[in-house]
């Protein structure tokens, strides 16, 4: 008798863990892959680098993971950033033009030398990220100081951003051939290089939020900004910080994405990725109303999003139908989160234990 009570108690603890439902969603999708896609879990070593569908999920998911890191903090304050996709495009255009400025002279100059670049790599990266930080800062000022609703405020840059990206490259697509830059998104050091970027940013963000008081303040502002204000928390600065940081993350994601497709395509880089990032955070269990957040859970959420895409491609869903199928799967995943379904799962599990 006693043991059953104890086991139901621990089961409850497991289901209440923030990582439980994201992990459950991920394993359900992977289970689907295991059954229907032969060789999905096969990992081979090519010249010491690990390759396979599973690794691809991580590699292709790295942009959404990067976005989800910044997005988690923004959503935790009760806001949302719709402009991250456009910010990605701006950062990519900036990087492209710095490596191959021929577009400014209204001509497309195809560089064939993989070692040619107009500016050194560090300048390219620093300037691109600076521009994306400015984008985030802009959002932050609108939301925190102008008191515009986050969805409206970031919608402005979401729409204008792609135009700005076009302006930077004079309306042309810049081919990126510089090999060191291509390494950002395509390089491997046993694992894909972009994963190391994600790991570093994740670690830095974790330290920034959990080893300083910023994380607690973000949650506090998201839950009850009046109480937070009365307690002396500068809610505006916190919001400015998270939007700026979100822009920074989007900038890195833009570099990774453009390096992956070898072009600064202002129209397509990061298109609708902001929605993937938001969904990743939601799947990670952070409430859209703000409050408690978990970076790790958001990362799993991003992997869920990518795993869905990857699986759909693998079973042969055509690219044009992908979004529709994805929507269906996302609905199923989100259903896992509704209180009704959770309560149902708990009731079933506890009644089993009692029997």
């Amino acid at each position, binding site marked *: 008798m006693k043991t059953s009570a104890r086991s139901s108690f621990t089961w409850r603890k497991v289901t209440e863990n923030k990582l439980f439902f994201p992990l459950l969603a991920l394993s359900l999708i992977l289970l689907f892959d295991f059954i229907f896609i032969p060789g999905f879990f096969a990992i081979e070593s090519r010249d010491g680098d690990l390759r396979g569908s599973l690794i691809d999920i991580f590699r292709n998911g790295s942009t959404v993971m990067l976005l989800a890191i910044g997005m988690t903090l923004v959503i935790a304050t009760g806001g949302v950033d719709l402009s991250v996709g456009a910010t990605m495009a701006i950062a990519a255009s900036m990087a492209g033009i710095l490596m191959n400025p021929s577009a400014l002279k209204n001509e497309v100059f195809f560089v064939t030398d993989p070692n040619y670049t107009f500016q050194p790599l560090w300048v390219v990266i620093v300037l691109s990220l600076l521009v994306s930080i400015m984008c985030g800062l802009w959002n932050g000022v609108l939301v925190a100081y102008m008191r515009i609703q986050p969805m409206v405020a970031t919608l402005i840059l979401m729409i204008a951003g792609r135009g700005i990206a076009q302006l930077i490259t004079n309306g042309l697509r810049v081919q990126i051939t510089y090999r060191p830059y291509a390494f950002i998104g395509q390089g491997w050091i046993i694992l894909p290089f972009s994963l190391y970027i994600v790991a570093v940013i994740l670690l830095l963000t974790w330290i920034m939020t959990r080893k300083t008081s910023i994380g607690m303040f973000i949650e506090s502002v998201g839950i009850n900004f009046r*109480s937070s204000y*009365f307690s002396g928390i500068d809610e505006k600065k916190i919001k400015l910080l998270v939007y700026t940081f979100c822009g920074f993350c989007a900038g890195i994601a833009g570099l990774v994405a453009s390096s992956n497709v070898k072009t600064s395509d202002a129209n397509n880089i990061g298109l609708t990725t902001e929605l993937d990032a938001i969904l990743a955070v939601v799947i990670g269990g952070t409430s859209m109303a703000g409050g408690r957040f978990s970076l790790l859970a958001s990362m799993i959420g991003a992997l869920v999003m990518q795993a869905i895409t990857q699986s759909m491609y693998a079973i042969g869903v055509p690219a044009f139908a992908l979004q529709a199928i994805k929507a269906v799967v996302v609905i199923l995943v989100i259903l896992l989160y509704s209180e009704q379904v959770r309560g149902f799962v708990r009731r079933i599990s506890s009644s089993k234990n009692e029997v």
Partner: protein
Amino acid sequence: MSESDQNILVMEGISKAFPGVQALDNVSLMLKRGEILCLVGENGAGKSTLMKILTGVDQPDAGKIIFNGSEIQAKSPQHAQSLGISTVYQEINLCPNLSVAENILLGHEPHKMGRIDWAKMNNMAGEALQRLLGIDIDTAQPLGSYTVAIQQMVAIARALEIKSAKVLILDEPTSSLDVHEAGQLFKVMKKLKQEGVGIVFITHFIGQVFEISDRITVLRNGKLVGTYGTASITRVELIAKMIGRNLAEFDEMTKIKLESGKHIKSDSVLQARELGLTDSIRPFNLDLHAGEVVGLAGLLGSGRTETASLLFGIDKPDTGDIVFNGEVIQDYSPLGSIMRGVALCPEDRKAAGIVDELTVRENIVLAMQANKGWFKYLSLPEQYEIAEKYIKMLNIVTPSADQPVKNLSGGNQQKVILARWLATNPQVLILDEPTRGIDVGAKAEIQKLVLSLAEEGKACVFISSELEEVLRTSHRIVVLREREKVAEFAGEVDEKTIIHAFAGSES
């Protein structure tokens, strides 16, 4: 009519557990038709939980509810309402951005040709307010533009307006009403009683219990202590049953106060000079001394909270200034105040005090951490140490420091907020209604605490709508009337003098 027919509502053997708390343990309650039953007990006694189970907000772990002769199990407040059980909760839960009329008639709007008939709706709501409560306000205005008291009245009107209500639950409806408004409510309650409605009335005001109720049910720590006829029990007996110990401590207060009065310093810590804000409070002078408790008394809407907001820097004054320790301050903001050593426990605990999803520990260290800034992070062991210290010191009842503060009872939440401010070690402590919605025992505890804090050398401002409490706790009393400081009394004053000052009549 047999005994069972008289009972409109019987709750039997109700039990309910929340994570870490046994909120109710085998509690029974019986309500007759046309009766006012008072439900009393300390914070965390389980009064609100019992009512939430009755109205379907929470589901009981055990027990049954018999309503109007048949067993029911309310699935939601809507379901309970459709059965004939209506509630007005302790915390107003209406929509401040909707109009008064919409709030009253939400879900019962009158229609004309398939559309809502707005004119008729506003009239209906106005008529209902007039008829039920005798108040006359513009029902087309958003609810949020009215005072908390009016909002409370609207909440009551909404509950009454649901026509089939056979049982009406009033959960602390009078906690934000002044004497006149409470009187109005009692009239309505008596009228409903004659019409055969059973009323469960939850309150912390012992005086009101004896004024209005027929019988009293006492809960303590989630258990039923007993049910008594109001005529057959005395105040002292009732309070003793509620808190399970006698109240000799109350008499101690006077002694403590006299004793602590000896420690008042002569030079002022904080000095408000002609401080005022248009449409908020007229310019006033106020000196706060170390070691002294200054009581702010006044009726609802007299400007007590507005005074506190100015002193704490939430509002920027448009006339006058504040001198703090001899320096004129420039930076009017909560953070600026905290850094100077001023603290404010706000009136509205839920909206401006607690951060409900954060843990007790996080709530306690919040202001202290805000004062330290982003990067001087208190490590977890330090945070636990601080939290445990205040949990012990203020006697906060919580399973652990990691409990989300929303799971605590109102009185304990209040103590958590007090702890938050004490952790910043303030020189000036402004307490706006620190005992609102708190039981008798905890009230005395907090009053004593305020005096002992003053004795340690803090300057305290004590704001309360209960005059008795202000008198008992304060060394000096400032009276506000209609957004203006009208009088200041030092030393011993009697209740009458102050009530005259409230009313503005010469005495």
